[in-house]
């Protein structure tokens, strides 16, 4: 797939490029159907000068026009679990489901992750942009962490100016309403050419080529033990420096310490915690906030024993969750 001496990048490599033109082209084509992909790819890309803009128009169009089919997702998860130890049935289901997915994509413009990744890849191929589908594990707050035994998510890697980049069109397109489970479009730009270090917190590729990390690759256990991060983390964070694990055993009067790098400068008032002891969540201010440029050093001291879910918020956006078990001294 890719050689050893490749360079990996992130969106800041293109800070000199304004994606407004690409985005407005994508928006102007929102009535296009999927019946003629070569034509769609051409329309999206023909008036743009650089590959990154061409790719942006394709990616943005897919994110804004393809809805996530939650019922299909649930059906597939159930079947995959049921057949996971029967390779014949598992394979037969995958074939059948693939046909269901493509039919739905074409007729109703609804899909699940691999459908997004497939469309981004196919439209990119047609525009001579080197793009791959990455299969792997995606970990979010509602994932049953104990059951993460089969790949459950797909995203893309794209080669622009000889560097590989990561993006996640499915998660960028929107999220289901937690009450109704109905999908709602809400474009999140944080999943476009994301810093691979942030991406690695909740994306585990089956093919290790696609970590695109220069430093050590996490083990699967480390991945399962990482903090839960949310879509809004991608909006606000460059990466999570510390800690690498979600759970912390501490003693009374000890602290949970967080270090993270943000994209835009923040004030102390932009930060708060929601601490849930299992009975009543409480909004609290951090014991200590230290802002050095783009780096935040946060610390919170626990004075009562108990087991806490600790949620970090930036500007009222939920960013990350840690669990803290405070022992009696």
């Amino acid at each position, binding site marked *: 797939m890719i050689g050893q001496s490749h360079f990996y990048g992130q969106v800041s490599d293109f800070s000199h490029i304004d994606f407004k033109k690409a985005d407005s082209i994508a928006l102007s084509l929102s009535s296009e159907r999927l019946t003629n992909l070569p034509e769609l790819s051409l329309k999206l890309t023909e008036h743009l000068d650089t590959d990154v803009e061409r790719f942006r128009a394709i990616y943005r169009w897919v994110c804004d026009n393809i809805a*996530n089919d939650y019922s*299909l997702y649930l059906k*597939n998860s159930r079947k995959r679990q049921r057949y996971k130890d029967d390779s014949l049935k598992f394979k037969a289901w995958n074939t059948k489901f*693939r046909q269901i997915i493509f039919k739905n994509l074409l007729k109703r413009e609804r899909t699940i992750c691999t459908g997004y990744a497939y469309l981004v890849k196919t439209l990119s191929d047609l525009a001579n942009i080197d793009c791959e589908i990455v299969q792997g594990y995606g970990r*979010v707050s509602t994932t049953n962490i104990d059951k993460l035994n089969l790949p459950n998510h797909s995203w893309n890697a794209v080669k622009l100016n000889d560097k590989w980049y990561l993006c996640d069109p499915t998660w960028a397109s929107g999220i289901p309403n937690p009450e109704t489970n109905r999908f709602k479009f809400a474009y999140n730009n944080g999943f476009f050419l994301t810093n691979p270090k942030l991406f690695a917190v909740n994306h585990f590729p089956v093919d290790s080529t696609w970590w695109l990390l220069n430093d050590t690759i996490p083990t699967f256990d480390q991945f399962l033990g990482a903090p839960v991060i949310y*879509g809004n983390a991608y909006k606000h964070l460059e990466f999570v420096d510390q800690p690498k694990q979600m759970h912390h055993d501490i003693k009374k009067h000890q602290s949970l310490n967080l270090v993270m790098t943000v994209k835009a400068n923040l004030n102390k008032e932009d930060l708060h915690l929601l601490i849930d002891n*299992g009975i009543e969540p409480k909004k609290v201010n951090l014991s200590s906030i230290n802002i050095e440029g783009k780096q935040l050093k946060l610390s919170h001291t626990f004075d009562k024993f108990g087991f806490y879910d600790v949620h970090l918020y930036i500007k009222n956006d939920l960013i990350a969750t840690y669990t803290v078990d405070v022992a009696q001294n």
Partner: protein
Amino acid sequence: MTVSLAVNKNTGIMKTQVLTQKSSISTLSLLTLLILLFTLNTAIGQTNTDTPTTNERVIKGLISDENGPLKDVNVRKKGSRNGVVTNEKGEFTFPEKLKTGDVLLISFIGFETQEYIIGAETTFVSLVLTEAMIEMIGALDANTPYRSKRKN
């Protein structure tokens, strides 16, 4: 270059002399040059008698998958907007005349895109598309706060 000139101007005997004097690399370049001169001659000969436009022709075709003909398949000329979709019977007639060396891109959602190069004798394109063999999976992102499982 000097070697080739010598050959062109002199007799066969002279040629052998030159060849034996020079290294094998020179021999090779000499041969290459001769071949080049020959092909150049024939190429010029061809353009004189046979212009590229004369082999333009109507291309028809049939696109199917393992279960039979496929309708709504896109057939497009590579590098152009010109194209057509297959009818109910999986058939198409390309709207412009094509010539040898033109490339058709055949694509349909869920199938591998195929390229077909129009050969010297091509008038009918028959292709069987293969499904894109990807495993369909999908997890959704969620904004619901994580909740630890508690024993109480």
